[in-house]
């Protein structure tokens, strides 16, 4: 399974970023290969408007199976994510990435 986390820093030691559209980084973790990719989201963050949908467009192109985040995508971003097959889990905003991953595995996160 491919999982995308919204994170503050480009490392597994990082805190989760509670936001979706203006998250600092995306971490894409491929469970099958145990590979991690960090994608810089600062170009989206610098936009005045429409950060949510632009971030969602990035996610659309990365094609993860699962999105783990804090507050959840806003309305416009959600309308983009609805165009793909993806499970969205929220409530991990105050955790570290590792904690968020464990919480997800143990069914402790809320599914949208």
């Amino acid at each position, binding site marked *: 399974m491919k999982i995308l986390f919204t994170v503050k820093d480009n490392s597994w030691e990082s*805190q989760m970023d*509670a*936001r979706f559209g*203006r998250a600092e980084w995306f971490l894409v973790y491929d469970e099958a290969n145990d590979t991690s990719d960090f994608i810089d989201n600062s170009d989206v963050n610098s936009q*005045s*408007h429409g950060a949510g949908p632009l971030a969602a467009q990035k996610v659309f192109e990365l094609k993860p199976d699962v999105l783990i985040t804090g*507050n959840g995508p*806003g309305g416009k971003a959600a309308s983009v994510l609805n165009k793909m097959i993806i499970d969205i889990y929220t409530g991990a905003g*105050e955790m570290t990435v590792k904690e968020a991953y464990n919480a997800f595995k143990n069914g402790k996160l809320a599914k949208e």
Partner: protein
Amino acid sequence: MKEIVVISGKGGTGKTSLTASFAMLAQDDIIVADCDVDAADMHLLLKPDFAKTEDFYSGELAIIDQDECNSCNLCFEVCRFDAITVNGRQYSVDQVNCEGCAYCSRVCAVEAITMQPQIAGKVFTSSIKTGATMVHARLSIGAENSGKLVAKVKKEAKNLAKTQNKSFVLVDGSPGVGCPVVSSLSGADYVVFVTEPTVSGLHDLERVNDLVKRFKIKSGCIINKYDINEDVSKQIQIFLSKENITHIANLPYVENFTKAMTLGKTIIEYDKILSEILRNSWKNILKDCCE
């Protein structure tokens, strides 16, 4: 960490004065965010030190390079905002009307038009008189987009709450129902409405509550100056009950409310009676918010 946002719909209900009072009561346990960025006033009561300043960029303005321009008129033809001014063969951009859509710059065949990022305001991080940290901002004159500036203030405040280990972010929200208010409400855990017992106050409260309902956020309401019109106060209370909004408190009209502001003090530092009511209100807000 919980985020409490204070809004009013109508201006002049006492929102900012009350938010400043809650900041005084909460002392060092919170981060304060002044998101009322179009004419921000909380700093007049909380005495921030403006320790850190950051420019805030938003939007662009078109600029025509007179040396490159060949007066082909294409920019004028495509502009929907009456932002291209023509004086004989001289083409220039009306900075008030330009909306930064960049259409003109894309069609200019001689590349005479460039888009310049605009400084739309400033974001400040300060220490206030309680020792707590406050994030506040100033929107530039005529700027659009105070929603994005609000988002930036909130983001900084939330980050600080994390690094300083504070349990609450207290937000002074914007009046109205537009983009800045939506931005103030995004991610909030609890909303405090501050209203006044006037037909305008109730009218505006209904409209802004409509907005809050879409976000499904728990809320409470303080009726300020309730004794100016006890009939309308009662109407408001009926409305609150119908809408499942906690009635937090009624504040009587007291001249000390404004006297305190005039002396640069929060009500907590000035009036005993109101302070007592506000102390209880803050306690109830924290309880209602965390249930």
